[in-house]
């Protein structure tokens, strides 16, 4: 039991050394000592509750993706049938009940129509995206498949995450974390961000920009009642607009979407001096914008952002340069946020903030300072108590405890985990478990001595008998820790991670390392009696 072959000692010291080494960058970061750049830099991340910053959980509306997809399909089908040679006439198009149905005027064209739609139905070939059925010989029904919708939601979330990342990068903040969580959520964590309003304003904007012609035939009284003439739709004015509270009818077709932008900057209108956003189209967008403005000189067109009309200026002359100006009663900040959003592209789906947590940096720093002080005082008291109770064995236990803390930090740093406030509870519990293991062993050795065993036998028995309880206790805690990780959410998980890693380091240091030291001492000093 007390035999320690050299290879085993080397192994134990190597493991200890590696873990402690990994802890050094994290420990030194609070001091002025610089860690050499050439060495690896494992760091324990401090959670936002300790470091200060903003945590935002965004959720996308998956049903929106599905309805958007249905709309696109409708447009796609109309286009396909119109462009077919000869043209296929369709009618009674409906998207009710989450599926698209329409009637072919000529039932003999069913096979041709089916063939035309085949590429759209099969999508990218990996999953079948739509089911096509024919009723009554001429009614075609397209039903989205569950796999197709899942795929679409997943694609939308992927590009939404990318857009969010671009927008946050524009803020120039330090090391933001942007992770997809679950099927429809994105976690955004920005350390050190003091003003989450800016962030939320940026992420709350879908930035879907549209230019559509105003329907000048619509009667204002009808529009106010929400009645759109055929081929038109109604949008409300934005709150920032001079016409807030009113609505506007615009032509459904023939508009331009802001998908083809190459740039957007906040600037000022030279005449009115009000903040505006300048945008630049790519070649294709520029060409279409030039055509729209050339064909409609003198008529008003509406600039629509996220379903709200910003403004509806008259087209004074064709705009051919591929750039345009968006005005709409902005403040400088709003114009800047819009410019960033437009540059990063539109979100494919609306994102709602469903959880937001901000911790001021002052408070975080204060928490750490107080936490460190309290831990230092607590550790000192524990050390005094251990050494006063167990003498030399207490010293071993203390050294093991210090190594335990360093190893735990080191492993957390190497795995790049995050230390949060609940994680500190896990830390306290781990230290408790490590102390308890040594108390158990030492009390057992005392008992064995009292029963009259010789020194070596007493120590051997002490470690052996105490280990059973130590392993049972640690395995039960390990099971609990793993389950907490599997079933728990954020903070509970943070606790579980520290707990599980801590169980390993505390058993390693409190049982294995101290046994090696005690064995070494017994071998060299050969004491006849031990004070314990």
């Amino acid at each position, binding site marked *: 039991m007390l035999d320690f072959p050299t290879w085993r000692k080397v192994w134990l010291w190597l493991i200890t050394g590696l873990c402690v080494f990994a802890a050094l960058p994290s420990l030194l970061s609070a001091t002025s000592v610089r860690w050499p750049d050439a060495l690896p830099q494992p760091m324990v991340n401090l959670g936002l*509750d300790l470091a200060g910053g903003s945590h935002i959980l965004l959720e996308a509306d998956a049903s929106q993706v599905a309805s958007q997809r249905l709309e696109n399909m409708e447009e796609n089908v109309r286009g396909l049938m119109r462009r077919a040679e000869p043209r296929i006439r369709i009618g009674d198009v409906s998207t009710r009940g989450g599926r698209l149905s329409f009637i072919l005027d000529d039932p003999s064209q069913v096979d041709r129509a089916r063939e035309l739609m085949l590429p759209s139905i099969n999508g990218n070939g990996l999953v079948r995206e739509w089911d096509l059925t024919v009723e009554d010989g001429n009614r075609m029904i397209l039903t989205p498949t569950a796999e197709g919708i899942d795929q679409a939601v997943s694609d939308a979330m992927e590009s939404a995450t990318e857009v969010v990342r671009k927008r946050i990068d524009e803020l120039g903040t330090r090391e933001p974390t942007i992770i997809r969580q679950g099927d429809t959520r994105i976690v955004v964590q920005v350390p050190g961000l003091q003003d989450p309003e800016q962030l939320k304003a940026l992420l709350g904007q879908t930035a879907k920009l549209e230019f559509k012609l105003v329907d000048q035939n619509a009667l204002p009284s009808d529009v106010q009642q929400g009645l759109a003439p055929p081929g038109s739709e109604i949008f409300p004015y934005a709150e920032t607009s001079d016409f807030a509270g009113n609505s506007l009818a615009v032509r459904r077709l023939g508009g331009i979407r802001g998908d083809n932008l190459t740039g957007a900057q906040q600037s000022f209108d030279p005449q009115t001096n009000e903040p505006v956003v300048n945008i630049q189209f790519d070649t294709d967008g520029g060409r279409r914008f030039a055509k729209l403005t050339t064909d409609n000189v003198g008529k008003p067109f509406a600039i629509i952002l996220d379903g709200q009309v910003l403004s509806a200026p008259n087209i004074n002359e064709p705009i051919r340069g591929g750039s345009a100006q968006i005005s709409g009663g902005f403040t400088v900040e709003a114009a800047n946020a819009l410019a960033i959003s437009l540059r990063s592209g539109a979100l494919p789906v609306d994102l709602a903030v469903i959880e937001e947590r901000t911790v001021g940096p002052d*408070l975080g720093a204060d928490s750490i300072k107080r936490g460190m002080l309290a831990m230092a005082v607590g550790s000192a008291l524990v050390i005094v108590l251990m050494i006063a109770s167990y003498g030399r064995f207490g010293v071993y236990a203390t050294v093991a405890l210090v190594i335990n803390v360093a190893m735990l930090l080191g492993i957390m740093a190497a795995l790049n985990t995050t230390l949060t406030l609940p994680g500190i509870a*896990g830390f306290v519990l781990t230290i408790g478990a490590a*102390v308890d293991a040594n108390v158990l062993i030492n009390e057992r050795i005392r008992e064995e001595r009292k029963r009259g065993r010789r020194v070596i036998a007493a120590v051997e028995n002490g470690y052996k008998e105490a280990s059973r309880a130590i392993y*049972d206790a640690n395995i039960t805690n390990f099971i609990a820790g793993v389950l907490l990780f599997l079933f728990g959410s954020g903070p509970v998980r943070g*606790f579980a991670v520290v707990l599980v890693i801590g169980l390993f380091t505390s058993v390693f240091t409190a049982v294995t390392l101290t046994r090696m030291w005690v064995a070494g001492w017994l071998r060299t000093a050969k004491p006849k009696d031990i004070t314990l």
Partner: protein
Amino acid sequence: MKLLKLVPDDTNIKFLKWRVPFFVVSILLIAASWALVATKGLNYGVDFAGGLEVRATFTQSEEAPVTELRSQVEALGYGSPVVQRFGEDNQVSIRVRLSDEISADKEAAQEAANEIVRALQAEYSDFRLDGNDNVSGKVSGEFRQTALYALLAAMAAIALYIWIRFEWQFGVGALFALFHDVSLTLGMFALFQLEFSLQIIAAILAIIGYSLNDTIVVYDRIRENLKKFRKMPLPELLDLSVNETLARTVMTSLTLFVALLPLLLFGPASLFGMVAGITLGLFVGTYSSVYMAAPILVWLGVTSDSFVPTETVLDQQEKKARGLV
């Protein structure tokens, strides 16, 4: 050098003599705790209730104007807020539970938070915003659910492991001790209306872990003694086991307590609830291991045969072959 001994050698306290009164008291305490939780309810923080919380420091003031704050925030029309001191006298947490309509509308919920902060910043020149949380009803519901599942799953798995490693009576005993600890902690949180948040769940988990350590140490000794002293009556054997491990129990509890005390006295305010919960659980957990987990074994009918391996057919053949029968 004379070493410190907290528990004198050869202690022989008759713990089991008082098992019935202690049990009655504990059952009453458990019942009282659940009654408190049912009547007074837990003071859910925004993690579990949803809504928003604003934490602030009044940097130039000795004391935060709690009553004034309450009426000012109430005047904004989002319902009646909970305003609590938080750490220092000049630090407060203001919690508002938003109505379902507001909380469902992302913009309205954000506007509510902004409006409260703006109003207070305008009113007090030394108002420093330390942080704010805004949790929608949907997420808080999920938090409640996952926290509950995690706790139940962990407790069930623990009981199962102890049943396998020891005997079913021990599994039941450990589970009962854990139930006792969790109940009493919840009762305390209901009684003093301390804020109940996700951090407190972490504290309860720490309590479970600690109490379990204690219980297993006592159980391990009981198992050992059951094998050693096969003729000893169970109550006497349990007393012996608890007395033998008493030095360890006191020492471990004391070291953990001295480690927690500084955190409690001058640790960060944001940790106070959690540390208070763990400290409370330290006492409750130690008590339950000695007075609940061990005595319950008497009623559950543990016998000295529990850990004697039963003879198998193979064993009998082996004995025959060696001419032992």
